[in-house]
């Protein structure tokens, strides 16, 4: 918890005096398994330097760099997609510097490894191929595939998985590779046929290896390191490069206007050096180095794109790929995913909406309980009891099944295509407690602040709306509810832009690089939930309860304190719990606004872990801790507010019919 204190500038400068002033910030789309290794290696070679890694999806990483003011940007941009670097260099957000390692060849096949304009460098190579779950194939008696062409066979029907190329840049490259390798006609023919054999077309590229790892799918079309690292992490999977494949570089570049450009250059040089390249061979990373010399140190059987094991037939033409990018994606979406399905879905949901409006017509107040006395309870016969418990058990099983799965996953060593895991371990929890105790505290702190503010604000707004005639009180409700309609990413960008360059009073810290902004964003995002809850609670309070208090000599303030708030307790607490829980799992805003790892909450941690095969266990463990935290928060608020004995009576208030 000690880090928490460096929120104040005093502590920051104290640290600076101690020689901890240098911080390097890297923004990347790569999983934690990879970045953590580089962070540790670089820090140990450069004492006094702290590496801050911001893990983002590629597009949100671009947005983050765009929104940050010059002088306060990350120093290094590190991601797969060359398109991302093109966008950044066009917007003059990349800085050219002579940092290439001369030992790296100019091209891999036909593809230039480094940017010809010199804005970014290839740091690793990636090829596309097939990954499969050996247990799954054995159980289903399906032979292991070798080539794309194998996948069109009928015996693979229902066993494949692929991600949509319009959603995943790597899948787009795979499709493009097949088209370039087999030709337009034959390529589409093949793609259409094996897509027909797919059990699923996932929305995120990691969904494919994840599904193959746990045995949901048999075979997946993936980028090589997904397969290689999963195998290295102990999953029963294999990976193969088909002969029709292409090798393309993943890149690294220096961001212009970063905080410490010199360190950035140093890091890029390190990543391209023999030492840095060698790190890619770590089993959990399993990527192909760009430096040919490193392959000598690779374990036996490690794929080598430089004339080694991979016979990459396709000379990838990136200009051709870029020129027909949208055409290929929309052809795939239209012919294979089928927009007809989405039209039907829209029609169905419109019909459902209309039907519910029609059925609920004139029944608006049906749920407002106004009657007298409680419901009578019936005694069940033994037979009925058995039935009732069976029903309850079934519902609990269905509702809790995913939670049980997560719990089991958090203790599992490897869990793939089997009812229970292969073995059990506590190491995931050890990892989590070692890596991220701060995250647990951060989540409790931010969500606690957000939920408390939400309830206070929501109670005030509910009172203004229902008990006063202040003009604009309805607009207040509307304004609060707007937060629901705005995607978290957009809200995040809005915050970054609005508070750009604004410092927290009495400190030298920028608001945009502080956790305060995160707590604030949670507050705004979750306010609508708290508001609905508080409004409902106040609506159920008959105004005469307040008038009676005033009549007996209590001022408005005293009335709120002694009558309104105690009787709203149930609703306020429900609002608190809902705000807290949903803020704890809020991801989109979090990804946008987290600017330092030690300020990151658990949702961010789970996201990072879940991006790699080795991270699934710790991710699940962190998830279990998140559930426990929310439960603890709920219980604490129950005890805190409930100590005055008000909660048990919440029901009574409603049944009394006052």
């Amino acid at each position, binding site marked *: 918890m000690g880090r928490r204190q460096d929120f104040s500038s005093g502590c920051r400068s104290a640290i600076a005096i101690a020689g901890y002033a240098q911080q390097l910030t890297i923004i990347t789309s790569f999983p934690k398994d990879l970045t953590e290794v580089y962070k540790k290696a670089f820090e140990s070679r450069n004492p006094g330097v702290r590496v801050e890694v911001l893990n983002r999806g590629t597009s949100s990483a671009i947005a983050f760099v765009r929104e940050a003011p010059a002088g306060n940007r990350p120093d290094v941009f590190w991601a797969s997609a060359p398109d991302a670097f093109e966008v950044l260099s066009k917007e003059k957000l990349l800085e050219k510097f002579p940092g290439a390692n001369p030992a790296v060849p100019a091209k891999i096949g036909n593809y230039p490894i480094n940017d010809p304009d010199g804005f970014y460098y290839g740091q690793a190579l990636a090829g596309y191929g097939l990954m499969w779950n050996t247990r799954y194939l054995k159980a289903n008696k399906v032979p292991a595939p070798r080539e794309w062409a194998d996948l069109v066979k009928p015996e693979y029907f229902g066993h494949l998985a692929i991600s949509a190329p319009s959603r995943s840049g790597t899948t787009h490259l795979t499709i493009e590779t097949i088209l370039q390798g087999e030709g337009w006609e034959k390529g589409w023919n093949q793609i259409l046929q094996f897509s027909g054999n797919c059990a699923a077309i996932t929305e995120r590229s990691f969904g494919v290896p994840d599904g193959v790892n746990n045995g949901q799918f048999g075979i997946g079309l993936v980028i090589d390191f997904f397969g290689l690292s999963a195998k290295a992490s102990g999953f029963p999977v294999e990976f193969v490069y088909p002969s029709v494949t292409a090798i393309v570089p993943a890149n690294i570049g220096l961001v212009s206007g970063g905080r410490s450009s010199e360190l950035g250059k140093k890091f890029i040089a390190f990543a391209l050096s023999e030492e840095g390249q060698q790190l890619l061979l770590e089993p959990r990373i399993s990527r192909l180095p760009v430096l040919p010399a490193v392959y000598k140190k690779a374990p036996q059987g490690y794929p080598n794109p430089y004339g080694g094991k991979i016979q990459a037939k396709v000379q990838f033409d990136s200009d051709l790929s870029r020129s027909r990018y949208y055409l290929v994606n929309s052809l795939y979406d239209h012919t294979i995913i089928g927009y007809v399905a989405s039209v039907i879905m829209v029609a169905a949901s419109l019909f459902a909406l209309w039907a519910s409006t029609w059925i609920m017509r004139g029944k608006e107040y049906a749920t407002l309980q106004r009657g007298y006395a409680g419901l009578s309870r019936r005694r069940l016969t033994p037979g009925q009891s058995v039935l009732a418990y069976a029903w309850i058990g079934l519902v609990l099983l269905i509702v809790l099944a995913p939670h049980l799965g997560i719990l089991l996953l958090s203790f599992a060593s490897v869990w793939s295509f089997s009812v229970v895991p292969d073995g059990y371990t506590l190491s995931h929890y050890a990892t989590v407690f070692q890596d991220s105790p701060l995250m647990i505290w951060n989540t409790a702190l931010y969500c606690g602040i957000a939920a408390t503010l939400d309830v206070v604000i929501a109670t005030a707004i509910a009172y203004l709306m229902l008990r006063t005639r202040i003009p604009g009180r309805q607009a207040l409700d509307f304004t609060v509810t707007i937060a629901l309609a705005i995607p978290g990413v957009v809200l995040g960008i809005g915050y970054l832009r609005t508070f750009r360059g604004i410092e927290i009073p009495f400190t030298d810290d920028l608001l945009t690089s502080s956790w305060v902004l995160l707590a604030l964003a949670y507050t705004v995002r979750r306010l609508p939930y708290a508001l609905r809850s508080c409004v409902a609670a106040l609506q159920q309070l008959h105004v005469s309860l307040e008038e*009676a*208090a005033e009549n*007996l000599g209590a001022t408005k303030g005293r009335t709120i304190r002694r009558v309104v708030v*105690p009787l709203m307790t149930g609703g306020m607490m429900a609002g608190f719990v809902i705000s807290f829980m949903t803020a704890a799992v809020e991801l989109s805003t979090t990804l946008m606004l987290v600017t330092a790892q030690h300020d990151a909450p658990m949702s961010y941690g789970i996201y990072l872990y879940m991006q790699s095969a080795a991270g699934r266990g710790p991710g699940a463990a962190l998830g279990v801790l998140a559930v426990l935290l929310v439960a603890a928060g709920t219980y604490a608020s129950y005890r805190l507010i409930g100590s005055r004995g008000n909660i048990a009576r919440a029901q009574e208030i409603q049944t009394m*019919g006052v």
Partner: protein
Amino acid sequence: MEALRKVKVEVLAVSLAYGATPVLHDVSVSVEPGEFFALLGPSGSGKSTLLRLIAGFNQAQSGQVLIDGEDLSRVPPWKRDIGMVFQNYALWPHMTVAENVAFGLEERRLPRDTVRAKVKAALDLVGLNEFTARRPGQLSGGQQQRVALARTIAIEPKVLLLDEPLSNLDAKLRVYMRAELLALQRKLGITTIFVTHDQEEALSISDRVAVLDGGIIQQIGTPMDLYDHPANRFIANFVGTINLLPGRVKADAGGFRFESSLLGKIALVGGSGAARDAAIAIRPHALMLAAGDQPRDAARIWLDGVIAEREFLGEFVRYTVKVGDTDFVADEMHFIGGISHVPGSRVKVGINPAQVKLLSA
């Protein structure tokens, strides 16, 4: 509990509107110290609004409210020292009976011991001392009402306001509680204003009644005044049951007369002004029914009618008698072995001119 100081309540020329909707129009009421005063009217008549105005929950556009001679128009509810019992009792479900009753005393920052003593006294007064630790949800409707009453009188207010206090109780309990209310009020001597739409309730326990309709005071008087001398047709109809006969008032050589096609001419005592449309009102029990061969009182005017309907109400039998196109309601006392008229039979309806009340149209 000691008897309280009796104060006067005056409402002077009060008008009140919600937006464009007028609710009270030029209302003036004066309630004497210690009086049990009823505000009677149909729903929407403005009676509750008037009560809430006195309590301070409404603001009048014009006019004044004086309590004990002091203008309270700008005083907030919590400083008025007026106790109000709400129609739904408005007990706080999160407090026990004792906590409910102690609330007002605590708000007055009285010492703990005093609060405890006064809570006990108030609960003794309503006979609920064994329920102090219960919560409102655990009490019956009647008990809840007593708690509400105890809570209000515990602060020893200058004036007691009761908003439809008996409407949530069943019929038997209502009759019992209204006697209890009156006994309590007499014991404390507190000036009490109570709102009701039930004319029987208003007439039976009030010293005086103000009848409201459409936001206007129609008449103020003792229950007997209202019954015997209704000021207008609305009062005549609303307070008790009555027969109304339209006609015209005319002056001639012998004084004023009321003329109608059914009754012919009736001489009026006194009277003034020009000829005008008017109506006469007769209570059902003031009519007399006679079968064809019975001897008849010559002082009455007798009309020919046919019994249309008969309702047996215990103490009396209520007949609807058709005379031409006009329906008369006539009551006859009932005794064991008394005769009754059968629907369809021909009767004579006897009207005593001395029991007739002339109303302007």
